[in-house]
């Protein structure tokens, strides 16, 4: 079996013959050093390494600096940059057009947890197959530096002074709304970001990854929760995560048994979790809830796969859709036959 790594090294292309360039988008217009750019790069890497044809991915976003970023990756994918806070509904409708495509959304902490909280939570309970990335910087970047709902209480920002309110924890909200894949990461930890994106893309239902993504222009003061230094100092990974696609051999060096956990996804791929300081079981929802609640005010940034239910049926499983994508159905499959109209009229008394 050829592993994806070998192909990259030998030819500069992946197993489906595409180069990294085929996964790039337009040049970024975000600030240099913005965490959102780092995440876009990991989306490119993850898709390249997963050998996904870019045409199979459909990108979505709301409004914000973060939401601009889908223009800067996967230029060969269809995409829709929608309204502030309303990405979930747009993505849901669009993905019904072809249930075989994979949805990938990028949103901000304001876009998701402020104006878009309602749609966010309702998307989760429907378990649409969709990778929902929140680029969480604790601030409104695009409108130049107001508090986002994830900003910690007491935080001081140049424009607005001191934040008087409690923050919202996006992962906790996601878990409370029955999301089937909840993860947190940090833009300064590219490997973890990438592996989580891979796992999220292959997950059967909704996958939420809340990624701390520093805004270097409006909110990167040393030591704050959403800054690069803050993230580096406080990041506390639950495990070391690797995603192993289906049909690929799991080769793990230097691990003795009992040091790893495996979570098998519905398509046969496996998430391998190497234990670090603690033994954390991401399939235990109540444990995940307790962990998040405990960590919320601990000053630590707990990252990794917080919760996963790999088998819960997806939204599409609740519908009896044909295998042919709905958007390729011909007229004879959509308009009832002529003779049916008489029966319909007969039903009208």
């Amino acid at each position, binding site marked *: 079996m050829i592993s994806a790594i070998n192909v990259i090294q030998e030819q500069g292309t992946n197993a489906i013959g595409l180069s990294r360039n085929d996964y790039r988008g337009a040049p970024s217009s975000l600030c240099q050093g913005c965490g959102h750019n780092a995440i876009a790069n990991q989306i490119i890497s993850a898709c390249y390494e997963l050998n996904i044809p870019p045409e199979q991915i459909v990108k979505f976003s709301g409004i914000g600096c973060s939401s601009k970023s889908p223009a800067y990756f996967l230029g060969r994918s269809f*995409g829709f*940059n929608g309204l502030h806070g309303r990405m979930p509904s*747009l993505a849901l409708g669009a993905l019904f057009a072809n249930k075989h495509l994979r949805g990938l959304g990028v949103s901000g902490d304001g876009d998701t947890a402020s104006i878009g909280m309602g749609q966010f939570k309702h998307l989760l309970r429907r378990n649409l197959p969709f990778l929902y990335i929140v680029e969480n910087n604790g601030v409104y970047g695009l409108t130049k530096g107001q508090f986002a709902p994830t900003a910690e209480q007491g935080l001081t920002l140049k424009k607005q002074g001191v934040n008087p309110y409690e923050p919202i924890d996006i992962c906790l909200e996601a878990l409370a709304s029955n999301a089937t894949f909840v993860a947190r990461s940090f833009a300064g930890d590219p490997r973890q970001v990438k592996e989580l994106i891979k796992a999220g893309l292959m997950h059967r239902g909704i996958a939420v990854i809340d990624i701390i993504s520093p805004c270097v222009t409006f909110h990167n003061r040393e030591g704050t929760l959403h800054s690069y230094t803050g993230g580096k100092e406080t990041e506390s990974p639950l495990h070391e995560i690797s995603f192993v696609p289906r049909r690929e051999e799991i080769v793990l060096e230097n691990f003795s048994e009992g040091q790893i956990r495996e979570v098998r996804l519905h398509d046969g791929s496996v998430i391998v979790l190497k234990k670090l300081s603690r033994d954390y079981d991401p399939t235990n929802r109540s444990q995940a809830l307790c962990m998040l609640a405990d960590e919320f005010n601990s000053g630590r940034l707990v990252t990794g796969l917080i919760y996963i239910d790999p088998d819960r049926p997806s939204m599409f499983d609740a519908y009896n859709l044909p295998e042919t994508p709905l958007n390729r159905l011909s007229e004879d499959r959509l308009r009832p036959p002529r003779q049916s109209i008489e029966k319909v009229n007969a039903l009208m008394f």
Partner: protein
Amino acid sequence: MGYPNSIKQIQPDVVNNFCITFSTINGSGSATANVTLLRALFKMGIPVSGKNIFPSNIQGLPTWYTLRISKHGFLGRLEKDDIVVAMNPATFYKEQEFVLPGGAFYYADDIKLPVTRTDIAVYPMPVKKIVQEANVPPKLRDYAANMVYVGVLAQMLGIELDKIYLALDFHFKGKSSAIDLNFSIIKLAAQWAAAHLEKRDPYYVEPMSITKDHIMTDGNTAAALGSIYGGVQFVAWYPITPASSLAEALHEYAPLLRQDPVETGKETYAIVQAEDEIAAIGMAIGAGWGGLRAMTSTSGPGLSLMTEYLGLAYFAETPVVVWDIQRMGPSTGLPTRTAQGDLTEAYFLSHGDTQYVILLPGSVKECFEFGWKAFDFAERLQTPVIVLSDLDLGMNQWMSEPFEYPNQPMDRGKVLWEDDLEKLSHKDLHWGRYLDLDGDGIPYRTLPGNTYPGSAYFTRGTGHDEFGSYSEEAEVWERVMKRLSKKFETARSILPKPVMDIQENSKFGIISCGSADFAIHEARYELEQAGIVTDYMRIRSIPFSNEVRDFIRDHERIYVVELNRDGQLKQLLTLETPEFATHLRQISRADGLPLSARWIKEQILVEEGR
């Protein structure tokens, strides 16, 4: 009997031309009784219409139902009560006042209140006694009580019992226990009336053959069925009166009609109940963008919430169909009363320069027709189509000519799949998402899943050039916006033309839209009886077709008749034809009830100085 019954019938018989109002309590099961009478009369071949005037309440408040029986086929609201059936003590006195002199007043005799009118025929009905005799289980007694007046009226007016049976059979979907129970009360009540009531009013029904080939249904069901024949693939909705029954009809009929003939056992549509109207329209727009025939149904408050998203669909050029079943606004307003008050809202929706295609169905049959056509227009023009129906049309039962199978194949508009792009490349033509290749303002679009190189594009509500790339350039912006208005010029010639009736020797014109048509039809007849001949145009779409301008130009005096306070259609016509603005006169009102011919006629006569 100790009731004031001094009058004897003095007028000649009135056959198939009168109006009955039922005054009941909301949630008491009267709807079944009323619609049973409506359907029985319809099955007798008599033109009939029924209007439910109901409160925004589930149980307990007064509710009215008016049944109009019209041998002339007039289906509009009549502002008089020949016969009143009073089942609600709370409105007992008021109800008496409404009965025309010489009319008839039926009431449940457990209402121990005096009847003060002496110029009407009064018929007390021993409702409780009959229900008891019919051996109705106690918990169904209140519900079944209304069947007593069905039986009494059947006897007193001449409604055929076998037709009533057909109506019950239909209503209860053949469930014999329910049919038999209700029918037994009706029969008992009819027998009681035959034995105890002496007819002292002039009203009778007689079989006709006018409605023989007709169907009976409501506009929301018609809209749902039309959409199903239009191949609707995606529905997202949020419950709101008076629109809910549209989506519910989709839920009911789509499974019957939309099984995939190829992949058997599969269904070619999806219906999602969204968390609110913003999500509903977002889902529908996403689906429309993905290439599905997508729709939502709502009413005024929901349309208000959809505003931002519809602006995006306008600018990103995404097809989507929105049914707005209008109710009385502003705000929560009168949620269960009808209006044509969302015209200007639909026209001006969203910030910046936007335009919308608006369809204005005027009958149940047209709800069906616009149901499928709306998708053709949305996809052809790549833009939102807002269909304005209303509570009166949408929720009341109407007799109608049968639905007609679509007489044109679907128009899926300008969509390029892999083969099409391949062909274009041979012709050395470049595809750009917003490039106007045909000069009609309508670009070509590609859909997700298309694997042809270069077929994918990034859709955005921000400034974009002909190739979909981000742009803030002044020239590009203006060019795109100009091309968009060109598209709406194209729309004028594609959309349904107005329905016109031009007479010789006409004195002036009348313009209306939607369900106002029923009352105008009758008002014009009455005006003609008074020697005033009129021309008429019922507008069916916006942007207005050229015929609209011509009609306004050619008539010095035009009454624009509509069901709202501000004369919204007149406002829009004034914008459209400022040079002829003085030709237009506003005749509008909004009191929560459908327009009546009498009121329209009176307004016009006053304006005409008669």
